[in-house]
């Protein structure tokens, strides 16, 4: 063999090896029926915000094994006892946004909340025809209690003393301590403890290494096929869909649902315009403005500006209370009054923000329960700066922002005051540098030129931790800028590991969120229970979610304990929630700013009937598992 032949042969061999690898890297699971089988009036295509799913054949959702979650797996195949919708819920099928799913009725506690009894539905079938019974629930709990490392093993092993099935349709829990919110483990907000098929898992030697492929379904859809590279999943409607809890709400209309993930923002726009996506999880504000303008079929949660869906999550400026400079509430209030809500809204969301001055997200049913009723209280609310008394609340901020964006978006911007409240928020603090100065002076701070000095004579300087990108990054940058302009040395610090650092207390001010609620229900325990001082750790230790501030207050503990003492649906829960809001205003432990608005859009090209602010039966943000109810409400545009 001469030298040339040797080199050519080597090159060809290498190419062949590479091509062979490409074929072997895939497997038969990637095969799918011809696309013609997925005609568009029978198929919904949904954008899943997960990146590349690294372990695409992993469907064991009870173990964190690198499989997808919102790829249809938890929306279409999983089920549990109750669902609590972050919006209104399907009328007539839910009560106060609560669905009885696998449970036939609401939870029943004994008087001291140490036992919970659940009556289950009859006639619900797994996709292999086996009936769902109380044994599945008992197995779900006991298996995870005895297997550390499973998704809900910690939740069960720290709370459950015993779980039994007195009959096939009744489950009885005995708890280790009184807990009036134990049912929350089985109540879906984004997800919850999903029920395992006992008859499958009891035959598995090691559940921690079991991939559960293909997954059995307790939902109305089963797996058709998936991409071995982890970017798409196809699900088919079960013929016996009426033997699932979704069937009790209505017949799901799509015969097939395709979830596609790892789609860059630009590609999402193009794919929806090309008819290859019906639901997009999120876009940038600018991307949303562009697509709703260019494509009349596309719309968001609000039919006009600001389009986005407000999630029951509340971005805020979080102070680290274990840093001495933030331990005086006058300082925290002063920092709040240095901010300009209009600037924050424009910089972060281009005006499409829904503001909230109180520590409750302005979404779901919260405006009805909290923001609306508290409006007059807010208007009258007064703070004593030590020099003067001021009323810091400005109920016209939403109107001002609406007027600012109207020249660009015209008639898409609402004019009705009620609509403005819903879209832009009920109001926020008016920037008041004079009051801020008085508060800081009262706290012992002094001014050296334009620079504030702390009571110990040091420059009032701190970093504002922000994520790498997105609206929260923009929000944090403008906040740091506004504080700097007011004489505080605040510098924005991009932190790729922002959640690790906030948990470790390695921050001064963090732009993130310490409040997430049910959305459709006024109970605040979802985040508030973890605010109890018993959970606040020493500096250097990891703080459990969500009291990142490490805020302690005896009155706060009292409120939490009162909430623990009443049932989830007890009207007193709302009263205590309002008490919390007022205490928060008094203390300003963090500065709530706006809801986390998700620019989720849907296309009416092939399907209509999507939820929106007028018909708020479900959350349109595609990775929430309660989005499954949408599939019972939409209709194809052509027969």
């Amino acid at each position: 063999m001469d030298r040339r032949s040797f080199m050519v042969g080597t090159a060809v061999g290498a190419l062949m090896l590479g091509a062979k690898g490409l074929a072997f890297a895939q497997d038969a699971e990637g095969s799918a029926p011809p696309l013609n089988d997925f005609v568009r009036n029978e198929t919904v295509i949904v954008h899943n915000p997960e990146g590349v799913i690294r372990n695409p054949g992993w469907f064991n959702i009870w173990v964190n094994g690198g499989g997808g979650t919102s790829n249809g797996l938890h929306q279409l195949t999983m089920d549990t006892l109750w669902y609590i919708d972050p919006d209104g819920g399907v009328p007539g099928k839910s009560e106060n946004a609560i669905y009885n799913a696998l449970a036939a009725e609401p939870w029943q506690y004994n008087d001291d909340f140490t036992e919970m009894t659940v009556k289950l539905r009859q006639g619900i079938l797994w996709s292999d025809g086996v009936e769902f019974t109380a044994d599945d629930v008992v197995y779900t709990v006991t298996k995870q209690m005895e297997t550390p490392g499973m998704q809900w093993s910690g939740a069960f092993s720290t709370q459950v003393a015993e779980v039994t099935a007195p009959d096939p349709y009744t489950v009885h829990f005995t708890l280790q301590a009184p807990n009036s919110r134990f049912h929350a483990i089985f109540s879906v907000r984004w997800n919850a403890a999903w029920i395992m098929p006992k008859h499958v898992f009891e035959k598995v030697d090691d559940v921690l290494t079991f991939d559960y492929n293909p997954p059995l379904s307790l939902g109305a859809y089963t797996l058709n096929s998936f991409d071995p590279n982890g970017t798409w999943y196809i699900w088919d409607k079960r013929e016996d869909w009426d033997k699932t809890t979704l069937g009790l709400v209505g017949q799901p209309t799509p015969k097939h649902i395709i979830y596609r993930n790892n789609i860059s923002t630009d590609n999402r726009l193009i794919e929806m315009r090309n008819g290859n996506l019906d639901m997009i999880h999120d876009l940038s504000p600018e991307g949303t403005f562009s697509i709703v303008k260019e494509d009349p079929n596309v719309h968001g949660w609000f039919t006009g500006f600001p389009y986005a869906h407000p999630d029951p999550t509340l971005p805020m400026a979080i102070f680290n209370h274990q840093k001495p400079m933030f331990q005086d509430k006058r300082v925290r209030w002063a920092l709040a009054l240095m901010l300009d809500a209009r600037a924050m809204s424009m910089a972060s969301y281009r005006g499409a923000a829904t503001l909230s001055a109180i520590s409750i997200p302005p979404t779901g049913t919260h405006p009805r329960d909290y923001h609306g009723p508290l409006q007059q209280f807010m208007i009258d609310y007064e703070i004593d700066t030590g020099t003067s008394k001021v009323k810091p609340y400005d109920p016209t901020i939403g109107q001002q922002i609406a007027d600012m964006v109207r020249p660009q978006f015209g008639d898409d911007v609402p004019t009705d005051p009620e609509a403005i409240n819903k879209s832009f928020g009920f109001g926020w603090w008016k920037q008041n540098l004079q009051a801020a100065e008085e508060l800081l002076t009262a706290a012992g701070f002094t001014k050296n030129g334009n620079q504030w000095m702390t009571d110990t004579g040091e420059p009032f300087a701190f970093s504002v931790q922000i994520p790498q990108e997105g609206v929260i990054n923009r929000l944090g940058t403008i906040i740091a800028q506004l504080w700097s302009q007011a004489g505080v040395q605040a510098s924005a610090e991009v932190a790729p590991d922002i959640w690790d650092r906030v948990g470790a207390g390695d921050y001064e001010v963090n732009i993130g969120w310490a409040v997430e609620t049910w959305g459709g229900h006024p109970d605040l325990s979802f985040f508030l229970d973890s605010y109890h001082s018993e959970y606040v750790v020493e500096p250097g230790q990891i703080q459990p979610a969500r009291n990142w501030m490490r805020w302690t207050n005896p009155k706060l503990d009292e409120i939490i304990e009162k909430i623990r003492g009443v049932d989830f649906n007890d009207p007193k829960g709302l009263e205590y929630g309002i008490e919390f809001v007022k205490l928060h205003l008094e203390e300003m432990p963090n500065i709530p700013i706006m809801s986390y608005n998700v620019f989720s859009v849907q296309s009416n090209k092939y399907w209509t009937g999507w939820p929106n602010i007028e018909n708020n039966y479900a959350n349109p943000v595609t990775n929430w598992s309660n989005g499954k109810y949408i599939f019972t409400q939409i209709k194809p545009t052509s027969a």
Partner: protein
Amino acid sequence: MQGYFWFAAKRAAQLFAVVFCGISATFMVTHLSPISPVESALGRMTARSNFAPEAVESMRAALTEMYGVNEPLINQYFNFWARLVHGDLGPSLIAFPTPAMELVMRALPWTVCLLLTSILITFVVGNVMGALAGYNQNNRFLKAFGVVAMGIQPIPYYIVAFILLVVFGFIWPVLPISGGFAMNVTPGWNLAYIGSVLQHAILPASSLVLVGFGSWFLGMRALVSNIVTEDYVTYAELAGVKRRTIVGSYVIRNAAVPQLTALAMTLGGVFSGTVITEQVFNYPGLGSLLVDAVNGGDFSLVLAVSTVSVAAVATAIFIVDLLHPLLDPRVRTD
């Protein structure tokens, strides 16, 4: 010949030393990273969910034990090498308990095929055109080609890729803009699959070729411009040797040696992936796998990707070192 083998043995020793040091350095960097795999996993498991603080603490303890991160660093280091010599890089922590190498081998062929193809195309086109442009310095077509090459090369890659995306995905939607192959084909040795893979690779490969050939072109043109003034070229021309022979055997062959060295380095870099290409065209590959691994604190997976990359670059250099004396007899091996 004995000298050549001694030369090869010394280079092989260097290869092992480089691989050992590279992997050890990567081990230390990944394990000293402030990103905790346990906290990352807890973040994924508890985000948006309702877990009591006691439950989270219990999960933290369980995951710490499962991931083996409670051991002293030095023990983890020796355990790592003990596993590595058996070809085991341990389980991925973002896809626990799947072996990290399994994830790498899933992504690797996509990256290798895409980059290998596009690099070879850019190398051949850039060098041949560069050589011709250097030899025929008054040719109008080659001058124009040079202007195009110099015009495209400074454009940021993302812009070129985005233009291709908009033109061929939206304005004139004739090419797929997402994924490695279509949903309706069965992976394997069949025409439909191969055709779909090729079709999906057109846009990402074109974007890499467009921004890549300029540097080869400019480098080769400069090299050839110097070589054509050498005495042996003038002598060959005076001796009436055919122009094709002069260009192919005397000019390009001599200019190719440094370009081949650069090619080997570039091919070694293939194993690090192309993050932007993968993100713009949602193309499978190693780049985004590495980003996910870093963000998730998955040091096993970072080490797996890095080990493949370090070994590939070192091996590529080793092969070039071995080929050098064969390609250029002037290189001494004694």
